[in-house]
């Protein structure tokens, strides 16, 4: 039986996998793994590193259980119409022992909302946060508390939604080919070696240990990162942001403006506040920033930077085939590394702005 997202129109892949043994070996040393798909992103070093470290089954979760995470992955990927991530999650569940019949029942229950109360509350929250029309508000957390989620589990849940949304965008925007994942679960060798594969998948899943920041986070989204004090999520997000800002492929100003466009498009005041200091650090006065953001351009901006802002705006809400077409237009303007970095920036910005809105408490 096929994935229910098979009807979603999907463009040809916009990226060429570029194997680089040295870079892959370095990543393996640093993060512990180097899966094949990172070859699409190796031209922008921080992105594959972030993608591996932000794998939600990779020692990041202390409170949330993996079945809930799998459910959230299905829901968020379906909301974002990400054929790639949906197929990967579906395949993992099949390999872990879920029959096609049970898989279909689960998908039907997700559609009809017939879930046990805790799962239903998590699913509703994940949908709200993914759609963000409008953004999640503090009262959206109340149903989660009512069914017994602790504050720490709620933060992890919000992080999971943001994280899956990040993977959805880095897969959907460059149209990574989903076909092999969509068919893998039904291949004879997958069925034959399913117990072995299941053992492998379970072996990749590790719970995290409480961790503190090596040093207090600063800069954009520091307020939000501090809410993950004690969780392994905080240091990983902090180092991902550090790597993003330090990367020389696109200018810091372009990246800060892309974050600001997404924060503005979502209507997230907290994100705008967090990013304002980064814009000022790049020499943009509040008036300059307002003028540029109000119309996504200005006389001081080049064609490429204007295109990046328009592209960032398009990634807030999209249909896969539309965003892939716009990404194809952007790719013509940029170098391959710039294009990959642009994809990474918009993916992370969309996730962090949504996460920031879901965790509004000021520290």
């Amino acid at each position, binding site marked *: 039986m096929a994935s*229910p997202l098979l009807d979603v129109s999907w463009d040809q892949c916009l990226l060429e996998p570029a194997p680089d043994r040295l870079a892959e070996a370095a990543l393996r040393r640093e993060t512990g793994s180097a899966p094949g798909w990172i070859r699409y992103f190796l031209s922008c070093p921080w992105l594959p590193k972030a993608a591996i470290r932000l794998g939600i089954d990779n020692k990041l979760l202390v409170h949330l259980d993996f079945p809930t995470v799998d459910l959230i992955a299905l829901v968020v990927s379906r*909301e974002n119409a990400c054929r790639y991530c949906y197929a990967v999650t579906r395949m993992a569940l099949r390999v872990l022992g879920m029959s096609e019949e049970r898989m279909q*029942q689960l*998908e*039907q*229950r997700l*559609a*009809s*909302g*017939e879930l046990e109360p805790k799962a239903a509350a998590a699913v509703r929250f994940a*949908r709200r946060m993914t*759609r*963000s*029309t*409008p953004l999640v508000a503090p009262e959206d957390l109340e149903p989660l508390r009512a069914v017994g989620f602790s504050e720490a589990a709620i933060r992890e849940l919000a992080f999971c939604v943001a994280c899956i949304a990040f993977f959805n965008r880095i897969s959907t925007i460059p149209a990574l080919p989903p076909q092999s994942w969509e068919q893998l679960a039904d291949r004879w060798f997958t069925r034959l070696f399913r117990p072995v594969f299941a053992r492998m998948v379970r072996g990749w899943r590790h719970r995290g240990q409480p961790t503190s920041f090596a040093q207090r986070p600063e800069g954009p989204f520091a307020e939000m990162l501090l809410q993950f004090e004690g969780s392994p999520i905080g240091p990983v997000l902090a180092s991902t942001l550090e790597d993003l800002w330090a990367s020389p492929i*696109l*200018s810091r100003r*372009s990246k800060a403006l892309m974050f600001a466009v997404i924060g*503005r*498009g*979502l*209507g997230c005041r907290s994100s705008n506040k967090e990013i304002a200091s980064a814009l000022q650090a790049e020499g943009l006065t509040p008036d300059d920033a307002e003028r540029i953001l*109000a*119309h*996504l*351009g200005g006389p001081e901006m*080049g*064609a*490429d*930077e*204007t*295109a*990046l*802002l*328009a592209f960032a*705006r398009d990634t807030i*809400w999209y249909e896969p085939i539309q965003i892939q077409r716009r990404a194809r*237009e952007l790719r*013509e*303007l*940029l*170098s391959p590394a*710039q294009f990959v970095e642009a994809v990474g920036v918009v993916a992370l910005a969309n996730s962090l702005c949504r996460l920031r809105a879901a965790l509004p408490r000021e520290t």
Partner: protein
Amino acid sequence: MSYPYALFLVVMVAAAGLFAWQQHRLRIMRARIESSAAELQRLQQSCALLAPAGVVERLFSDGPESIAEHKVFTAMFTDMVGYTALSGRLDPQTLAGVLNGYFQLVSDSVVEHRGRVGTFLGDGILIFFGALEPNPWQCNDAVHAALAIRESLVRYNAELERTGLPRVAIGVGIHRGPGLAGLIGSRDRREYTVVGPTLNLAARVQALTREHGCDILLTESVREQLDPRFELAPMRAVPVKGIAEPVVTYAVLGAREEKARMKIAGTRDQV
């Protein structure tokens, strides 16, 4: 066979039969539930084409009355100029073909600029920007869409002329203001739309395009939010039915070149 054994056998056979019958009923019930769930899923997917996904979900969970909220949005009203004369000259099939081509080009331009076609009203089309999800750039989007319609119409007219058909002209009115977004209609038939005076003024401004001799007009509330790179020409204030003060409008001349969308060689290293 003695009587107690025969009785036991009969009871066992009856129990087995009952059990098998119940299992059969259970299978039928399960199949019906699964079929209903699949049907519901298909229904939700179909409804998603008619209204935003969040609206569909609320419709299923809380009922149609729950879907109503006040929003500030940009309304665009387009109308075909000279439709009445055209309808008298063309046979029904040809007229339907011309109309469908016009509707398609307007829809394509609107969707490309993140708008939503609300309602087809005869040869007029009601369009919203920022009514479904927050859109701080809704006025720019609306004017970009109007310019895209103008550009597509040039190509469409060339196509019509090649086949010996008369040219089509349009009037577009754009206004920004508050309105009620929700599932609106009678008990039997509702649609997700926006209602309020903003739409009325957009329609009146569209009618002013004839008076001012231009194709795209917008109001002051749109101009205030608009990118200064659009070239506008102020029109004289005109009294409009239902509005106390004469309405100031601006004709849209065009937009300065959208450099960002152009392929400019040699700029890759600028970023």
